[in-house]
């Protein structure tokens, strides 16, 4: 099991409790460039520490937001490619549907792979619903754009016979011949995110890593849908290395300290959806049938954001969603190193084997000292046990049953 350290590089100084919007519409007068510089340097230090402690590294990006200063994961990864020594460097991801120029994306990602001497993991995501207005990309066909850009980038990285052309539904190029070509051949490992059963199919058919964020006890059915398609397509069951799950985490010297750290990290969950209402779900972003379900739920006064616990109880994410409830829902692992180890093993067994655990160990205003201590406790007392556990667990979900 590989464990990736992740932070969104938040700018919590601008988070006011009654803000109408922390994204898209919040004026950048709220952003002090000096504070931003200090935060960037600090978060880079923490990724460097992750490299030294034996973690792998995950970076994402968001746009026009105080929740995440990483406006380009390429830029952060370019720095990390040079200043880290051993960690795998995961972009999860490049919001491919929002990019108007996948040729440029292919070039920049190849640079990161080459500078890091082959440590790059290439994650593609559709992009959150808030950001089509920023990129001014039509929300109606984002998945189609994602898959066309994906096909294009893989071809650009794996074609070594001189220029080719591309005249697709969404992208047009006359001369594609990227320099450098990637270090890893034919291209860096591909990851794609999904949260619903329907979207796992295309990922399983291609054999890419399926990553899912914070869906807790809906993970098993998603992974099982991937396993079924993967087996039908490739004739074997996928190993745990095909799966990634993202959770929030806090480790402390006592349970209370670990939970307190996770509670500060969890401010990510509390703030990430605070966005000017018209930008929450632009028309066309979700399929028509999903929109009908959401309209029906709203009309009936129900929350459209419910998550199950391990025992199947449904919890409303939007109301009094405490750290303890988030732990019950499998979104947060927190406590002493031993408690966190047991929570992760329990979730891994439930999910049928997770080869890649993505942990947000820094979020909100969790200080550098607390973050570094939480990371160090994890690296010293949890990570080696998880590696040993994973080496000895059955390699496919089938065998586990």
């Amino acid at each position, binding site marked *: 099991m590989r464990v990736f350290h992740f932070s969104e590089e938040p700018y919590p100084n601008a988070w006011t409790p009654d803000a109408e919007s922390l994204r898209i519409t919040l004026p950048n007068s709220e952003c002090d460039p000096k504070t931003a510089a200090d935060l960037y340097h600090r978060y880079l230090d923490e990724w460097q520490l992750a490299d030294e402690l034996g973690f792998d590294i995950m970076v994402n990006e968001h746009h026009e937001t105080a929740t995440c200063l990483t406006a380009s994961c390429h830029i952060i990864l370019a720095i990390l490619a040079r200043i880290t020594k051993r960690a795998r460097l995961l972009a999860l991801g490049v919001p491919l549907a929002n990019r108007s120029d996948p040729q440029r994306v292919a070039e920049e990602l190849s640079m990161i792979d080459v500078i890091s001497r082959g440590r790059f993991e290439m994650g593609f995501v559709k992009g959150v619903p808030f950001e089509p207005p920023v990129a001014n990309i039509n*929300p109606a066909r984002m998945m189609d754009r994602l898959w066309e850009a994906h096909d294009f980038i893989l071809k650009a990285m794996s074609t070594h016979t001189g220029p080719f052309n591309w005249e697709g539904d969404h992208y047009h190029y006359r001369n594609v011949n990227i320099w450098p070509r990637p270090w890893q051949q034919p291209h860096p490992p591909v990851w794609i995110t999904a949260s619903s059963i329907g979207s796992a199919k295309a990922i399983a058919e291609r054999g890419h890593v399926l990553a899912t964020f914070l869906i807790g006890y809906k993970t098993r059915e998603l992974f099982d849908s991937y396993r079924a398609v993967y087996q039908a397509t490739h004739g074997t069951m996928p190993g745990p290395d095909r799966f990634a799950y993202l959770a929030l985490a806090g480790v402390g010297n006592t349970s209370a300290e670990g939970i307190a750290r996770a509670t500060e990290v969890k401010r990510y969950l509390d703030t990430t959806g605070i966005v*000017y209402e*018209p930008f929450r779900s632009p028309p066309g972003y979700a399929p*028509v049938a999903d*929109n*009908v379900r959401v309209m029906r739920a709203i009309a*009936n006064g129900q929350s459209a954001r419910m998550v199950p616990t391990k025992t199947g109880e449904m919890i409303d994410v939007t109301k009094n969603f405490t750290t303890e409830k988030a732990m019950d829902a499998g979104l947060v692992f927190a406590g002493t190193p031993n408690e966190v180890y047991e929570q992760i093993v329990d979730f891994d067994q439930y999910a049928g084997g997770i080869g890649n655990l993505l942990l947000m160990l820094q979020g909100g205003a969790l200080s550098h000292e607390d973050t570094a201590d939480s990371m160090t406790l994890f690296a010293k007392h949890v990570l080696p046990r998880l590696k040993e556990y994973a080496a000895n667990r059955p390699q496919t979900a089938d065998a586990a049953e």
Partner: protein
Amino acid sequence: MQRNTARFNREAKDRGMQIIPSIPPRTQTVRDQAIEIFEQGSGEPLLFLHPARGLDGCEAFLGALAKSHRVIAPSHPGFGRSDAPYWMNTVEDLAYFYLDFLDALGIDRFTLSGSSFGGWIAASLATKLQKRISSLVLIDPLGIKVSGREQRDIADVFAMKRTDLMAAMFHDPKVGAFDMKALSDDQLTIIARHRKSEVLFAWSPYMHDPKLKSRLHRIDARTLVIAGASDDITKPEYAKAYAAAIPGAQFREIAEAGHLPMIEQPDACVRAVAEFLAG
């Protein structure tokens, strides 16, 4: 008039918008596409192209026109229950679709009208159809760029809260209200299809075709541009600029109406259209 405006508006407020218009539909096949049509009356054909929110609320206006015309009101491809092939994603595609549509119905000469998004399609269609359109009535049409690159001609409906949108769209925002709880899954599906297609066709360039204004000179039909005086989606000045770009076009403002005057003031709109067609 079967119903007067005041009564219609009272009823609209009581029942809320119903999303699916209260006119019996039929299905017309146009080059393998199933297209939903609401048709009534007889006489010279009048093709009405609906706004992005569909035909609901247009019944009084269309019913009055149907006393003297064969009123044909289709749901655009991707709207209502009409099919759309994947390749259609611009208003130009919809204008070309309506060329096929007219062929499928065997219509040669006709009166053309369109409101808002449908007015944009109608204007584009009219630039492609010389000598076949007897009269053209554009009601607060979208589709052209008038002012500078840092001004919005058309309010960003995708960036407005629902209450702000209703206030901008209607003189009396209560006219556009609907009770989501009372709607069936069929009705909610139509709302979701309308929104998705509006985005697909009009997201960027936002609600306009940068080239359309330069093509409007080709319109040879007698033209009336109607604007709601209280329209805050496109101000009456925008409709005036539209009229100025079409040779000989007349302009008329409807009082106490927003962006959809045929819904809010059907009597006044019918009068304006009747006077224009008679003149």
